[in-house]
């Protein structure tokens, strides 16, 4: 189904209610789609009950909705089975789950390979694992423009490597990772591959089988769904061999005074009451996304991105961070303006109804590699249009006048 961009904005309650707002911070949080919001409200008002614990009809309706949400997430990812989908609180929780659970089988001298381009949520869990177990943590460097420097792979991904854990798309530069090359290098040495898909999911459904990876993490709030829910997908045979991370109700086989056995995945990794209504809302967002004409949306996002970059090149003292526009990019554009702090830039832009984010974007190693401590970031999603880009470029004129 193809949708005209103008109608897309109207499908997002917050954007529909604030036509003057130019929201360019979707890399931090995308707006929630009306269908997702409606699904949360409908669930909470008609099916609210705990899952996996009740035999009354209301509880069974909640069970059904929750498990259907799991099946939807599996279809969105093209997973083999819904049992490979674990609901978490978000991508950060998903990544920590792998670091703790898969990581518990690693030993001193084993190697985990990450990259300089990681969000802190895919950096710090591995540093903590290194402290706990003595693994080696190797870091793929980036080129001057922030793309992963894959020339270093032969020395980094060697026989000691057990896992390659990298971002699918940078939250600062929009650079997409060459996943196929990484997967090929990992497979040669028998290492597994984890993709942090936090930034990628708002740009379309994924195909974890075609990617050839082993784990995939993402957050609901970055793909037009509610906050407080995320997904970890893992290959069934890997999940089956992994111990639980969090423990409690819902994840056990049997508990006796002496010992406890674990439930099978995915329940093994969903201790306690999961984010039920949020998962149902996320499923509604994913269903909606699967109905869209993505080639058309990608073309549109790329056009807007190009328009923005062209305009930014004309701003005096502005330096773009990241690859050239000719590289494969998600519509995320970061920049710094000589002498101006991103907080001040964003504050002035806010007065002109522009929502952008300034700071280190939880990617300090990448910022350091790009030669900047902080920067301003504009991130474009499918509901943005030319007016948003023009408003930003006009807004930067105001910034230069106001802060000069």
């Amino acid at each position: 189904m193809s949708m005209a961009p103008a109608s897309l904005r109207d499908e997002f309650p917050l954007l529909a209610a604030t036509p003057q707002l130019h929201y360019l911070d979707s890399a931090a949080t995308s707006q929630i789609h009306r269908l997702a919001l409606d699904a949360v409200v409908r669930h909470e008002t008609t099916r609210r009950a705990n899952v996996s614990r009740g035999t009354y009809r209301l509880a069974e309706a909640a069970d059904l909705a929750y498990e259907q949400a799991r099946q939807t997430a599996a279809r969105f990812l093209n997973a083999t089975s819904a049992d490979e989908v674990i609901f978490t609180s978000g991508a950060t929780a998903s990544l920590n789950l792998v670091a703790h659970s898969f990581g518990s089988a690693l030993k001193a001298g084993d190697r985990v390979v990450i990259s300089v381009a990681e969000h802190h949520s895919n950096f710090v869990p591995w540093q903590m694992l290194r402290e706990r177990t003595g693994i080696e943590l190797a870091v793929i460097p980036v080129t001057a423009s922030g793309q992963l420097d894959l020339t270093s792979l032969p020395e980094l991904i060697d026989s000691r490597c057990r896992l390659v854990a990298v971002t699918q798309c940078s939250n600062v530069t929009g650079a997409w990772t060459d996943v196929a090359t990484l997967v090929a290098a990992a497979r040669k040495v028998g290492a597994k591959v984890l993709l942090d898909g936090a930034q990628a999911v708002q740009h379309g459904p994924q195909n974890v089988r075609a990617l050839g990876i082993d784990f995939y993490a993402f957050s609901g709030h970055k793909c037009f769904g509610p906050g407080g829910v995320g997904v970890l997908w893992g290959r069934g045979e890997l999940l089956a061999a992994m111990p639980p991370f969090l423990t409690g109700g819902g994840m056990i086989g049997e508990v006796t005074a002496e010992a406890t056995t674990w439930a099978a995945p995915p329940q093994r990794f969903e201790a306690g009451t999961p984010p039920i209504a949020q998962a149902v809302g996320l499923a509604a967002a994913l269903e909606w996304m699967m109905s869209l004409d993505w080639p058309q949306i990608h073309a549109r996002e790329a056009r807007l991105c190009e328009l923005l970059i062209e305009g930014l090149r004309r701003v005096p003292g502005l330096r773009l961070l990241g690859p050239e526009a000719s590289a494969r990019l998600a519509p995320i554009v970061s920049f710094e303006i000589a002498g101006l702090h991103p907080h001040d830039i964003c504050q002035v832009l806010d007065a002109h109804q522009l929502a952008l984010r300034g700071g280190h974007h939880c990617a300090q190693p990448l910022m350091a590699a790009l030669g900047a401590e902080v920067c301003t970031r504009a991130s474009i999603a499918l509901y943005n249009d030319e007016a948003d880009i023009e408003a930003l470029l006009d807004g930067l004129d105001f910034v230069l006048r106001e802060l000069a």
Partner: protein
Amino acid sequence: MNDSNSLYQDAIKQFAQAAHGHGHLAEASGDAKLDNPLCGDRVRVQVDVASGRIMAVAHETKGCLLCRAAASAIGARAVGQDEAGIEAVADSLESMLKNGAPAPAGWPELSMFEPARNFPSRHRCVLLPFRALMAALRNSSLPHRKVGAGDTAMPST
């Protein structure tokens, strides 16, 4: 020029540009470095304290205009004050930002931050240099002085 509702009053820009007290003390009795981990702002403040009063103050500030202007105000006004006086100014400034109280007595220039009352996320930008100054003064009162700068993250406000 700007209107009275603008966060970026000319006074803020002028104070930030003047950067009073920017630099490094060769001899410091107290020294502290604070970060705002959310935005990467960083302030290092050094003080030389004798008989309980600030004899010299210097700061190195990487941050936004608000943070730099606040540090500059410290550079212009803090010499001669004691720890209790600085603490009172810092508390009063926080109250001005959060509760609408008047600018701290004796520091009229801090009224330039009154428009920041409407922007809670920016309060920490204004307060960071004062918290760094307080930390430096606390260091200074410790026995066996001449400590190095400590890396400390500013607590959220």
